[in-house]
């Protein structure tokens, strides 16, 4: 039994030896224009990602808006001028918060992230984080880590079985899994640091980095979702990431230097897209999260009829106690603001109809068909008007 404990300890130690950043033997960063040799394991990962990219190019969910793509590219090149020619950036229209980076230089930015970033500095930090994965070659590091640890477990399980202790195999598997995920968390910490360094070097206000995680954490808490236990997490706890980034910002930010958060420009670029992104967001039916998001957007832009309209939509669709009254209030604020989409009157009409107020419903539907006489659902609305007569 004693021997067994030693064996198990060996697995954990071998499985746990991630090379720290900058330590001797650590992998060299990817150089501009560098490609792995064709017979290497790294080339295999690149090949697989090339295939993913080829298929991504034909995806119907890609955002083809040149202004937005050009804008993101510009930020990317500002962060890593020497590498920006090697990175292909794809904007994927999906309401979830994410960005991904492949070893071959294929970067995905999801629109759920763009909707949530408050300014260019926050977005730059996330792009920098992804660039960190790329420059530090985290994909191949992780693959080698997983390969080594699963090999060790396979050999260990066989030896343990030969010694008559086959039952410890699952324990070794669990130890390896824990260690693989710990390695992943270390990669994420490193990418956070690099993202921070790149954004600050490019002159973006470093205090913005922590804020995007704070906003996200607020949404998660509102949704009453618990984070997975640390043992099973691929990423470090959000609190830890916020603390680390705040500490870095406190060391880096000085009043003498001029920093930018690029908020105005960011809003200008995002504005033409925002309505479509908010529609996608509502389709998640994750009302608690979306409510927090809208609150945050409205705090910065209280007079926006567009945002008020979506707030109304959220209440109308959620149908909790008091939501009808809240929806009516939001729609009315939207109409008063002046930049509400024409559907605001239709939505208001639907709520009044549901509440049995025929007169108000009719008035709202009338305004809708007057504002949008060629609307797709014109016949439907006309039939409502007929019924409400």
């Amino acid at each position, binding site marked *: 039994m004693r021997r067994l404990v030693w064996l198990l300890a060996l697995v954990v130690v071998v499985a746990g030896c991630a090379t720290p950043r900058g330590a001797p033997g650590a992998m060299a960063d990817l150089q501009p224009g560098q490609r792995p040799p064709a017979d290497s394991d790294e*080339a295999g990962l690149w090949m697989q990602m090339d295939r993913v990219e080829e298929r991504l190019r034909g995806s119907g969910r890609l955002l083809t808006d040149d202004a937005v793509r050009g804008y993101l590219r510009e930020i990317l090149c500002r962060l890593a001028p020497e590498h920006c020619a090697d990175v292909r950036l794809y904007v994927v229209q999906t309401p979830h918060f994410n960005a991904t980076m492949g070893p071959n230089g294929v970067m995905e930015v999801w629109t759920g992230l763009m909707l949530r970033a408050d300014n260019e500095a926050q977005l730059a930090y996330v792009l920098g984080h992804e660039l960190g994965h790329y420059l530090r070659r985290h994909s191949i590091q992780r693959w080698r880590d*997983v390969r080594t640890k*699963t090999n*060790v477990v396979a*050999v260990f399980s066989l030896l343990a079985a*030969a010694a008559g202790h086959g039952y410890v195999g699952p324990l070794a598997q669990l130890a390896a899994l824990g260690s693989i995920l710990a390695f992943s968390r270390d990669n994420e910490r490193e990418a956070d640091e690099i993202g921070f360094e790149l954004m600050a070097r490019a002159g973006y206000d470093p205090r913005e980095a922590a804020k995007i995680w704070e906003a996200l954490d607020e949404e998660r808490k509102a949704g009453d979702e618990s984070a997975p236990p640390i043992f099973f997490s691929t990423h470090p706890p959000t609190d830890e990431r916020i603390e680390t980034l705040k500490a870095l910002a406190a060391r880096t930010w000085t009043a003498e230097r001029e920093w930018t958060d690029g908020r105005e420009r960011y809003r200008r670029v995002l504005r033409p897209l925002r309505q479509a992104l908010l529609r996608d967001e509502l389709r998640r039916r994750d009302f608690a999260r979306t409510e927090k998001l809208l609150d945050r957007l409205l705090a910065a832009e209280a007079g926006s009829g567009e945002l008020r309209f979506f707030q109304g939509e959220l209440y109308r669709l959620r149908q909790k106690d008091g939501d009808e009254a809240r929806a009516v209030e939001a729609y009315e604020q939207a109409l008063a603001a002046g930049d509400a989409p024409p559907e605001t009157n239709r939505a208001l009409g639907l709520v009044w109809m549901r509440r049995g107020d025929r007169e108000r419903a009719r008035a709202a539907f009338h305004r809708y068909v007057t504002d949008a006489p060629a609307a797709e659902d014109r016949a439907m609305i006309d039939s409502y008007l007929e019924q409400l007569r």
Partner: protein
Amino acid sequence: MRHHGWLAIPVLAIVLVGCAPPGVLLRDRGFTRPADPVRVLIMPPDVELSELTAGGLLEPKADWTEQGRAHVAAALDRHLEGKNATVVRYPAPGGDPDPADLQLLKLHDEVGGSILRHKYLPVLELPTKRDVFDWTLGPEVGRLRERTGADYALFVFLRDSYASAGRVALIVGAALLGVGVPGGQQWGFASLVDLRTGDIVWFNRLVSPTGDLRKAEPAGDAVKSLLAELPL
């Protein structure tokens, strides 16, 4: 932020070894060997080769894949030239396939995968598909016919893996203990698609614990066995 997952495990391939082979599948309405030579478009074969690590992971290999793809493409050409068919090669050799064609290749991967699961694995049999074989890629394939003038298209999907030295040692060690550990494996499928309708008129699959797509001759054997009963 996530990475793309690399941990694809060939569960399907392993499961498939152990099941009863229904053999070649033919379209319900029947497909008869055409009297006159038909024009067959060979789509770019979807081939990927990997190494099986001791721990059981598949590590994709770029150089092997390139060799394998070239051997398979050449073997497909040779095989069809010996048939009652005029070979039409996919346009833009070496270049990227057209994005809409890529959608068709993706679709074939999915449909072929469904056929494998639901026609070859009795436990996953679908009641509505029990006695029928009516899978189709849909009329969108007509674009290939318009562009190339071909009557049929041949889609091929192949995966091949080889045990690493560590895996071989593990297999031997486990065998001494009386435990069977699987090694590398070759598997895949091919469809002949009628470009007028999109219907899959003929389908076959290949599962083999041996073979080597990295070399011309065994790659030719694999293609021959996959297309053995192609009714052309």
